[in-house]
């Protein structure tokens, strides 16, 4: 039973990883690609590690630590990358309607 649950979790994680890869290929610009890669792969990683935890209960503490580490690092790193991309003005897709970061920056500049 535990093995079945573990296998289903690993399979779900693999599906999320697949969708992350698909998003990398199909999304129109750097920012949307980044969010596809980050969100889907974070969830995929978590699910796969949880599934492994069902397979090997004796690893669960280490797996939990790895999950926490991934949950902490993945969003921060992709945030830093996206911000850097915004700073050097990598263009967004034409369908973008809101750019909160640029609006904030302009407001701050005019405030000075």
């Amino acid at each position, binding site marked *: 039973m535990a093995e079945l649950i573990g296998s289903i979790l690993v399979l779900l994680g693999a599906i999320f990883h697949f969708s992350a890869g698909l998003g990398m290929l199909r999304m129109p610009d750097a920012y949307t690609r980044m969010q596809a890669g980050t969100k889907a792969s974070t969830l995929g990683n978590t699910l796969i590690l949880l599934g492994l935890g069902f397979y090997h209960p004796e690893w669960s503490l280490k797996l939990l630590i790895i999950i926490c*580490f991934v949950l902490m690092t993945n969003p*921060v790193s992709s*945030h*830093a990358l996206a911000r850097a991309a915004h*700073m050097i003005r990598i263009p967004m897709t034409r369908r973008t309607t809101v750019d909160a970061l640029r609006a904030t920056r302009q407001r701050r500049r005019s405030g000075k």
Partner: protein
Amino acid sequence: MRRAFVVLVVVLFGLVFTSLVIAHNERHSLRPLAESYVKLVPQELGAPNVITGILLTYRAFDTLGEVAVLFMVAAGVGLVLGASNKRRKSSPRKVVETARLSSEIVQSGAQILAPLIAIFAAYIIMNGHRSAGGGFQGGAVIASGVLLLVLASTRYRIDLEFLSMTESAAGVLFVLTGIAGLIFAGGFLDNRMLPLGQFGAFFSAGAIPILSVLLGVKVGCELSVIIDRFRA
């Protein structure tokens, strides 16, 4: 045209890798040298991790040489990049001020992660004789933590003097441990000058953990100095 070229490259890579996979046949027995090491290391040195046992005992002299090579790299980078830094030294304040501050998320993320990275590095270094890990890897992890801090905060200054002092001290202690092996045991860097202890325990395998720690400190300091040199 470009697409055809990409497809061609992919097909070529595929051919290369398939030929590699086909040509690969797994050896079912170890080579004589490997076999003797696999037998000797747990027996003589009391270290479950054969590779660390080899690196820090039988081939410890090579490891010392590798650390020396890393030291040369650090010195060379300092020589090349330090000079160009001096020219810019007329306005170091300005560089710091114009440097773009990293966002709050990165800063607080780095504050949370840096201690975790340090703990992980200590874990890798201290478990080198029991499982995968060792001084070099742990040192690299330490340096990655320093790199994270440098990236997160432009005002973060590395104390280069402290680093070079620590590094030299670790190097001297490494050689002294080696000489102690020469006096109390079979030869230079022989780990049996300390009791081997229980096989697989935390304090075991003679002097290997000590050498591992010294190596980790030395490598971490050297790599941190190299990272700091690359700062504008």
